[in-house]
């Protein structure tokens, strides 16, 4: 239906008659059983009418008192007892509302938005303005320990589904006016509130520009979760490697902000998107900074080792056992050959079968109810592992390799990097089963080229490694003592204009 | 390897090359098409040599033509030592 904007605005303006307003609201919310209309009357002889409209599922129980509070205001401030709509109007225009948070609404779409955001909207007779009081209350999860990122030492505060609470928790950690928060709304149906935060003078201006320009045009997009935004703004959708990080920890988010990252929060989801994320940052957790230097450095190295194992161990095993058995020490080689005797399948097929079973177990384990979960894992390990060995489908060595690979992939702190490895493992296994060490090297080189050519929000993904910046390596594979990099602003090298992107 | 196998290999190579250049073809203009065609000529010639396992004129033969004599001389020096 094509109408000019002016006409739309005209038809949107509220009328002075209560009945028209009420009818309009009833039409708009036809079929919405949870929208309630409470008429009331005021004045000396209760001759003046008013109606409150609200969504009962969205608001606190104290609704009936709003009308009461409003009129109380008038009684308190007005000496003359002559209460008329005109009086009411004059009062609110002059003084504004008092007790609760309220807004003056002049258009129907504003009123609809407010009602759907948990406001109580009150219309008075003979007045074309409505007053909306905020009364939002919906049951939400309590603040608890984030499930995916537990810590032994350090805060256990995780984000919840309330956007305001999350922003508040982060603001509490960074008490500076340089912490900027910018809001936007996306989706014509979902009307999701999105917020992004950054610390001025810590974030790289070019990155912020890139981020903003990519976020443009997200308005029609129905955003239901932070990962929708990742999909919208990332550089390479088809790459298995994640270019942004997720976190549920407020301390991690605060630390990232100090490091010059931009974080994105979406209402109704606890996941915070941290952009940009570099490859080397996926090996760090916030707990690294709370434990001692040497231990933290060793754990970092362990994680790098876990990454290599998770990605390459099955491929290396296949390549060595099939093509280059001379590289394996003789004693071990004899043991392997001993166990591999009688196995009908080549090493690749064996590895593939075991890996797929492991992936199946992992996928099924996500949905198992907790009482059954532990029983199934024991059964899975014993039955599948032991039975497979005895049925000569797999050799014990292969079971060990697959189990080690699985364990190693859990050692990587960020889930979306772990899934990248799960995806990449299979092509590498395939290519190393075809051509042994040569194939493995080619696969490795192709992966490395892909990683090096990947960009995240304009920055090279492998920054600190490629291009090699030795000064940043103090926080990559080791964790240098905090006194080396805690002064503000951190990561000053990010703003050094001489250091160009190469 | 029989010529059939070699033909297979050659067409596999040509197919791979065409697939990787897939995106360039729609936007190509006349000059670029001409240059591309010119570059494809040695490719086809070498492919022909490869398929039928001929030892026709190749880059190494060109080099031997120019540097053949000095190379023989140096080779003989090498043999002496």
């Amino acid at each position: 239906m094509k109408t000019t904007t002016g006409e739309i605005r005209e038809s949107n303006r509220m009328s002075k008659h209560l009945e028209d307003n009420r009818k309009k609201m009833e039409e708009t919310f036809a079929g919405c059983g949870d929208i309630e209309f409470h008429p009331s009357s005021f004045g000396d002889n209760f001759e003046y009418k008013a109606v409150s409209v609200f969504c009962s599922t969205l608001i606190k129980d104290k609704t009936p008192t709003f009308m009461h509070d409003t009129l109380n205001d008038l009684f308190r401030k007005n000496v003359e007892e002559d209460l008329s709509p005109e009086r009411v109007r004059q009062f609110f225009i002059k003084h504004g509302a008092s007790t609760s948070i309220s807004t003056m609404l002049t258009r129907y779409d504003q009123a609809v938005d407010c009602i759907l955001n948990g406001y109580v909207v009150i219309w008075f007779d003979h007045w074309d303005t409505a007053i909306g009081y905020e009364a939002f209350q919906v049951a939400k999860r309590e603040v608890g320990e984030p499930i995916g990122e537990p810590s032994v030492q350090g805060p256990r505060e995780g984000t919840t589904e309330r956007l305001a609470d999350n922003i508040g928790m982060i603001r509490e950690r960074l008490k500076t006016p340089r912490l900027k928060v910018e809001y936007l709304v996306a989706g014509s149906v979902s009307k999701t509130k999105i917020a992004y935060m950054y610390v001025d003078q810590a974030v790289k201006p070019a990155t912020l520009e890139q981020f903003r320009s990519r976020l443009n045009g997200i308005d029609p997009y129905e955003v239901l979760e932070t990962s929708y935004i990742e999909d919208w703004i990332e550089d390479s959708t088809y790459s298995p490697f994640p270019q942004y990080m997720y976190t549920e920890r407020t301390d991690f988010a605060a630390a990232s902000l100090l490091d010059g990252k931009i974080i994105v929060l979406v209402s109704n989801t606890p996941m915070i998107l941290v952009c940009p994320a570099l490859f080397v940052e996926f090996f760090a957790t916030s707990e690294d900074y709370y434990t001692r230097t040497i231990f933290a450095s060793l754990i970092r190295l362990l994680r790098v080792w876990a990454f290599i194992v998770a990605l390459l161990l099955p491929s290396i095993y296949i390549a060595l056992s099939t093509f280059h058995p001379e590289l394996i020490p003789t004693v071990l080689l004899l043991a392997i050959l001993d166990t591999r005797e009688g196995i009908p399948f080549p090493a690749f097929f064996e590895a593939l079968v075991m890996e797929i079973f492991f992936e199946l177990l992992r996928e099924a384990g996500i949905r198992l109810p907790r009482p059954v979960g532990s029983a199934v894992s024991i059964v899975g390990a014993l039955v599948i592992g032991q039975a497979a060995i005895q049925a000569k489908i797999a050799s014990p060595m292969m079971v060990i390799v697959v189990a080690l690979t699985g364990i190693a992939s859990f050692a990587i702190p960020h889930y979306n990097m772990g899934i990248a490895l799960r995806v990449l493992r299979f092509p590498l296994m395939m290519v190393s089963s075809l051509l042994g060490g040569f194939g493995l090297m080619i696969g490795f080189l192709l992966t490395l080229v892909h990683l090096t050519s990947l960009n995240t929000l304009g920055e090279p993904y492998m920054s600190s490694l490629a291009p090699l910046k030795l000064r940043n390596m103090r926080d990559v594979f080791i964790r240098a003592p905090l006194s080396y990099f805690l002064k503000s602003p951190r990561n000053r090298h990010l703003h050094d204009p001489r250091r160009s992107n190469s | 390897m029989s010529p059939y196998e070699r033909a297979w290999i050659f067409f596999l190579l040509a197919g791979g090359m065409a697939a990787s250049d897939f995106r360039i073809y729609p936007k190509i203009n006349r000059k670029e098409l001409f240059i591309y065609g010119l570059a494809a000529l040695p490719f086809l010639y070498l492919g022909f040599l490869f398929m039928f396992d001929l030892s026709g004129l190749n880059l190494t033969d060109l080099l031997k033509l120019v540097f053949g004599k000095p190379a023989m001389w140096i080779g003989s020096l090498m043999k002496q030592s």
Partner: protein
Amino acid sequence: MNDKKSILIYQMAVLLICSTMGSAIVYIPNPISYVAGNAAWISLAFAYAFGMLVLACVLFLHRAYDGRGLLEMSRLLFGKTAAVLIAVLFILMLLFAIPAIVVGINSFFTTIMMKETPSFVFSFLTFFTVAFTVGKGLQVIARMFVLLLVMLIAVTLVILILAIPLYKVKYALPVMPNGVMPVLIGLFTSGGFPYGEIVFFTILLPFSSRHEEGSLSKNMYLSLSVTGIMLVLSSLCTLMVFGPATGIYKFSLYILASEIRVADIIERIESIIGIVLIIGSYMKATIYLFMLNQLFVQLLKLKNDRLLLTPLTGVCVLLSLTMFKGDSDFSQQVYVIWPLFVLTVGCLIVFTMTLLTFLRKGIKNDEDDNGRDPRIESDVQASGG
């Protein structure tokens, strides 16, 4: 200049190491000790000095022409037609070098490690990876090769250190029973491969970033010294293990690694040298393919610089499968004809250009206070550098 194509100075220096040491580290000193025997390392030391000379000329030209490439420099010096001829000669050189590198990988794998696999498999896969990398641009290449080079040098040093128990120092003494001639022939061979190939860097040097602090020359000399030291060291170590027999085994580092036996666990690790060979050759082939592509782009003034990448790769693949008629043909071509080609064509061109530029600058010194030829200066502004 911070556009898509410029790389930092240390990255340029790393590329120099990659292209000189990359594949040479596995082959040296076999071809040289074939003639020079125990004195191979002396030949290599002299070749390193020769390489420094070539590098000095290349850097001088880079400075004198304010960062122009080979084609532009030859246009300015010799005119358009001669420039095209020079470009064609360099193209022919590169078209020989790139397949030769990959044929080296092929022959290594088909004779030693994976005897049943036909060689076209290795050609295809290697060239696919190389072309894929070149297509991503010089910056990606430079970033990656720093990491790969670290790996390469680390593995080589580990091998050389693990072989310490095998060294017999008396083998390293240059005996020279046939006089100086073998050493000179060794110098000739290693002057061609790998040191003579530094002339190709006239094509690559324009891509180094202009507005960076630090000296390009110092870094380049340093990296060539790294190559020189590594090659001399590797040849010394091989000689100390095998003595006069070094000239027989084709892949010296490989054979050296196969002799290592440490505590019953670390033995027969020569397959790792296969990795070193792949990485080194891949790096060299990538850099050379990039240079070849650039030559065509500059010669034909192409707007899309990925247009000819696939045809060139295809031609190189087929060349690698058809060019050499056998092992002895390969040896003769790479160790005799190639040095001739590089020295008499490549090095001669670069030396001539250096000499002419030097003389010209001397004559026209009064034109400009900076010692720069104002004609060149204005051309820089016109072509945008």
